[in-house]
């Protein structure tokens, strides 16, 4: 049984101009120990999906249909207090900016020990041992000393390591990581990605990794869901989706990323820009930018369906050359 299943999730933002769906009919499932990458441009709805899963949607946004199950149990309709307990114990969260995820007036140790003791029946001393152990596991040098220092005494990369320790120390079953490396320098980014992957393997936790960076997805995730204008357009194993994209958007996106190596005369590009939620077209949201567009694409919204190992929402998935 999947650890996390999200079925037909729709998040709606009511406004006086009428309500808009930030994400629509998003269906994903994550197995234990698996890393699912969610990738897309800003505004595609990837962060919103993560926020809906951990129950941190910003009002007035709310889940208007669909359901979220963690280990078979519905968690999308829980009262706030119950959701808070789940958030600490069973779902861990890692956000983009490590500085705002840590309390600046408490030592790193205090924060770790507090989290550990809130979720596990341990004495203060045992919790401290465990906290030191976690700092060591995330690669903080001299953890016995560093445990009593404050977040501002850490560098950016070290801080993100602490955030990861904090998210993992209650041994959650699921980790939502929202752009965990975006605020970091390239050479540090690689270290954090590798750390996240190693810890997920070691603890058997499932990870939903939200990022805009295809490179991060390629190096970290097992499966990837590509989002566009609030919907999943393609989902499947990373190797399959990245090397043989079936959806014209995924294909265009992959082609447009500059790479190391022989340089093309012209970088393939997708014309135009992603529509805002209020002005999404009735049919396929990608149709206005799609080179393969047919009349059906404008009239009818394609459903996500299987073509081989991946699932694609495109009327022409079988016909378009890979």
């Amino acid at each position, binding site marked *: 049984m999947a650890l996390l299943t999200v079925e037909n999730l729709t998040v709606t*933002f009511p406004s006086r101009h009428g309500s808009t769906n*930030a994400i629509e009919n998003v269906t994903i499932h994550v197995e234990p120990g698996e890393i699912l990458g969610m990738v897309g441009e800003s*505004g595609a709805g990837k*962060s919103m999906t993560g*926020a809906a899963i951990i129950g941190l949607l*910003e009002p007035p946004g709310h889940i208007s249909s669909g359901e979220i199950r963690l280990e078979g149990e519905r968690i999308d309709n829980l009262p706030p207090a119950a959701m808070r307990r789940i958030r600490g114990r069973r779902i861990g969260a890692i956000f983009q900016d490590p500085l705002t995820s840590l309390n600046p007036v408490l030592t790193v140790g205090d924060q770790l020990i507090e989290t550990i003791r809130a979720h596990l029946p341990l004495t203060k001393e045992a919790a401290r041992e465990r906290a030191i152990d976690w700092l060591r596991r995330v690669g903080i040098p001299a953890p016995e000393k560093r445990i009593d220092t404050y977040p501002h005494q850490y560098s950016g990369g070290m801080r993100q390591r602490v955030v990861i320790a904090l998210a993992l120390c209650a041994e959650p079953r699921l980790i939502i990581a*929202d*752009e965990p490396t*975006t605020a970091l320098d390239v050479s540090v980014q690689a270290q954090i990605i590798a750390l996240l992957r190693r810890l997920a393997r070691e603890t058997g936790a499932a990870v939903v990794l939200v990022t805009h960076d295809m490179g991060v997805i390629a190096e970290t995730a097992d499966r990837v869901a590509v989002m566009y204008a609030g919907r999943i357009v393609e989902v499947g194993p990373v190797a399959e989706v990245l090397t043989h994209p079936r959806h014209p958007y995924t294909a265009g996106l992959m082609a447009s990323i500059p790479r190391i190596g022989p340089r093309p005369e012209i970088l393939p590009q997708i014309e135009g820009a992603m529509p805002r*939620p209020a002005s999404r077209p009735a049919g396929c949201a990608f149709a206005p930018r799609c080179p393969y567009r047919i009349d059906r694409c404008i009239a009818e919204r394609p459903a996500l369906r299987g073509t081989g190992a991946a699932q694609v929402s495109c009327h022409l998935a079988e016909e378009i050359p890979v």
Partner: protein
Amino acid sequence: MATPTPASAPPRPAPAGLIARALSGDVAWSFRHSWSARISALVLLILFAAAILAPWLANQNPYDIGELSLFDSELPPAWAEGGDARYWLGTDTLARDVYSSILYGLRLSLIVGFASVALAAVVGISLGLLGGFVGGIVDAAIMRFADVLLSFPTILVALLVNGIMRGALPPAQHQQAAIWVLILAIGLTNWVQYARTVRSSTMVERNKEYVQAARINGVSRAGIMVSHILPNVLGPVLVIATINLGMAVLTEATLSFLGVGMPATQPSLGTLIRIGNEYLFSGIWWVVIFPSVVLVALVLAVNLLGDWLRDALNPKLR
């Protein structure tokens, strides 16, 4: 997408010009859904109209001594016992119609209020812009002076400015100059708030890339301040100006009540209240009550509208 923000509205929906934004509907929508804003606006509209149309609405010209008839002095309101139908709200000890006096007094109070707010805004915006953009010693000098000014109660500073100017003018001109003295005294005391607000916004704006682009293109410092930064720091000023209008009207009333404002021959609301106050214990309540009611309504409406405007223009509260 760092935090779960509402979908793909552009990350920073930058505001256009104030007028464009007002018409775009956010502010208009907020106005339609705020009872206090709508009632305040209605009250203000009536009061402004009354002040502007005073010569046509009034039953007599209270400044024209020839129109007054001393036989009609101290008459109670028309509906009270002994009232006269010609004087709806009664007359004062000089036989001036209270209703007409209020209309003319309101006019004076609003002129002083608007003019002193405009003066304070011009001085405050200029100094704040200069200090925030130039920085260094100029900024330090302006802001320390502002700090000193702020450490005295406004009314005290206004009294001081008022006193100095009256001392400098020959006594014969006191009556004519009274309104100018008031405007200067109130205006020069209230600029600090504008200066502080504009200065801090200026310090944020001057480091933005559009300002760097202007520098690269050889635009002069004065040009950058006036045409680039100024339009981007005016938003909060509107809110301060609105709330300050209420403050200015009150300060004028206070100064006039203390006898250092408008003279009795040219009464503002504050002067009317002072005159009325002197006769309150002889049972002539109407001379003090009616101007007071108008003053309270005016200031309350201005403040409520200012509060609403502050919330409506603050994107975080929307």
